[in-house]
């Protein structure tokens, strides 16, 4: 009996893989945050899903539970099953490079990593997130009532700290324009030191760090630590948005965290879904070429999410100023941190 069942199931399996192989397939390997991290893994996956809907391709993902899984997960996607493999996260840089070198015919793309020199079969996707975070910092400085803002990160790595750089510079720019004295706790762009939870998964840490910043007077906080920020959001939810507002990162968090949508002042968008979709399109059209895609305000790769429930609370003048700054950054007349 078992034999029959097994052969039957094997047949189903074989049939399944045959159909899968016939269509164009995009595969994603997540880092340890998981596919539903309300952060970059999820956003990148949205790019795959959008492509599935628009181009009719197949998509699948593998979740990594540990760093040792990166290479193994990449290996298990080899053998022609995937037309393009998308890896997510700075920490997967080494594993992706190793795998790409061993399998030169396989197309890869990595979110949040730029190789120098570039690798012929890998497209790095990086983002000028500081541009969007600059706008968020300016906005927050204009909205704060205590004159204190806060931010913290997951791990002190460039894709994280670039948010914090932009945020601080944006707030400083507000100070110099309006002659105010808004301070940002949690990050010092000069020394490149600040507050870090040391992980991308502890919601408890997100809550505790936000609590600390709130106790120090911050009324708007930008957590840059993937799902850790959900912990901060739940604190804001309990305290009420008059006491504490959160600025989301990566995706529009009113969409990824709908239960607490009202606590998000805005989100600093890192449109990984857009760049991932662009890479998939290129792979489908045979225009895929190793190198770098940089998401900017100009090409829409980064941006600021709508204010949603704060739409009326944000003064029209502030909105106008932000639009002006955005234009200035795009035309190059304003440089961040300059």
């Amino acid at each position, binding site marked *: 009996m078992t034999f029959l069942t097994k052969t039957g199931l094997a047949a189903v399996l074989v049939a399944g893989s045959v159909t899968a192989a016939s269509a164009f397939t995009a595969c994603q390997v997540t880092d340890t945050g998981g596919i539903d991290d309300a952060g970059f893994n999820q956003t990148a996956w949205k790019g795959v899903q959008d492509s599935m809907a628009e181009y009719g391709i197949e998509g699948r993902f593998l979740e990594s539970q540990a760093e040792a*899984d990166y290479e193994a*997960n990449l290996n298990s996607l*080899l053998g022609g099953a995937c037309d393009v493999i998308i890896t997510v996260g700075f920490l997967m840089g080494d594993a992706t490079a190793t795998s790409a070198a061993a399998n030169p015919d396989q197309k890869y793309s990595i979110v949040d990593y730029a190789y120098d020199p570039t690798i012929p079969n890998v497209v790095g996707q990086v983002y000028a997130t500081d541009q969007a975070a600059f706008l968020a910092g300016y906005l927050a400085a204009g909205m704060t009532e205590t004159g204190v803002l806060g931010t913290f990160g997951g791990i002190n790595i460039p894709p994280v700290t670039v948010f914090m750089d932009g945020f601080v510079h944006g707030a400083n720019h507000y100070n110099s324009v309006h002659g105010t004295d808004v301070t940002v706790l949690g990050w010092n762009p000069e020394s490149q030191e600040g507050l870090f939870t040391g992980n991308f998964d502890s919601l408890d840490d997100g809550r505790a760090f936000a609590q600390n910043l709130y106790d120090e007077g911050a009324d708007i906080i930008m957590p840059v630590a993937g799902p850790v920020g959900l912990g901060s959001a739940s604190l804001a939810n309990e305290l009420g948005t008059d006491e504490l507002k959160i600025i989301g990162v990566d995706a529009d968090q009113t969409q990824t965290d709908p239960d607490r949508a009202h606590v998000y002042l805005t989100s600093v968008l890192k449109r990984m879904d857009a760049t991932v979709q662009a890479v998939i399109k290129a792979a489908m059209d045979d225009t895929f070429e190793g190198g770098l895609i940089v998401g900017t305000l100009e090409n829409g790769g980064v941006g600021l999410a709508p204010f949603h429930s704060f739409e009326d609370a944000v003064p029209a003048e502030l909105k106008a100023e932000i639009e002006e700054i955005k234009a200035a950054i795009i035309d190059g007349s304003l440089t961040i941190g300059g």
Partner: protein
Amino acid sequence: MMDGKDLKHVNEDMRKLLARAAFGRGDFEDLFVVPVFAVVAALVLGAVIMLATGVDLPTIGQSFVALAVGSFGSLNAVSETLTAAIPLVLAGLGLGLGFRAGLFNIGAEGQLLLGGTAAVIFTFSFPSLPFPVLMIFGLLAGALVGAAYASIAGILKATTGAHEVISTIMLNLISFRLLEYILRQPYIQREGRSDPISKSVPEAGQLPRLLDWFDPNLRLHAGVFVMLLAVVFVWWLLFRSKIGFAFRASGANPDAARYAGMRSGLVIVAAMATAGALAGLAGASQVQGVLGRASPGFSAQMGFDAIALALLGRSHPVGILFAGILFGGLEAGGRQMQVDAGVSIDLIGIIQALIIVFIAAPLLVRAIFPWGFRKETKGGKA
């Protein structure tokens, strides 16, 4: 004449006493039948859970085929299974040895982290040493640091009576933060990186991959030999050596061991150090064989999985080896389940946990599969 007869009689008696007891059916059931049924029961229950979470039947069947194929169904699968088993078995051996000595050491995670880090630092500090000298010294450095770190808990217990469960948990927490600090030191941190990540293990310090001549993606490395040697060594240590006898005696009955003149303090420190050395070796084999560097959390909870592993293997080296291969297979097969059937990796964690629960509760397994076992008679001696 009379004496001769007596002597013959005595010799006859002694021969009888020395005849090895046959391998009983009870032992066979405990060692083989129970684990097999436990795995079956866990898989069945796992299927029920999948059904409850809305996975359809063909997908469930597909995922179990994938589990089998992904764990033992191909050369790559076996390679992945063994690769995952290496650090688990090494750390599990240390924990099992501790359990035998009556020490509930929760600290394998920290010992593994620091041991692995020491191996990385040692190997990139002496890049001029040739292979295999650098590789072997790297492993030794890992073992030594693991032993030293575990000894702290041992010494605390021997001198002040501090319970090892508490002290090893605390040492784990310390090791997590300590590692982040170490990895940020300029000498250790990789050039051009601001996140905590170490420099790489040089080629000569790596455990060479064994099958890459066949397929560059096969990750099985020479650590598998380290693992097998460790199994033999721990078996010898526990069941053949003098100090191992003291370990086991102290674990089975500390009072009797004290009455027999065994020095409990010495036993505690020696057992903890040996356990730590094996955990350190696990960390070293992982960084020298798989990861090539140290980063925060590279241990990936292996030190905790190894606790379950040691319990599953009944703290016997061979049992731990098989349990490690089972865990490795679940890890590799679980990956295949994701690839082929799109079933969540979390399910593998659930099945793993179920297997442990069933093996830990042999009575439950006997109750579920009554036809698999000889009928039990109640009671003991008259």
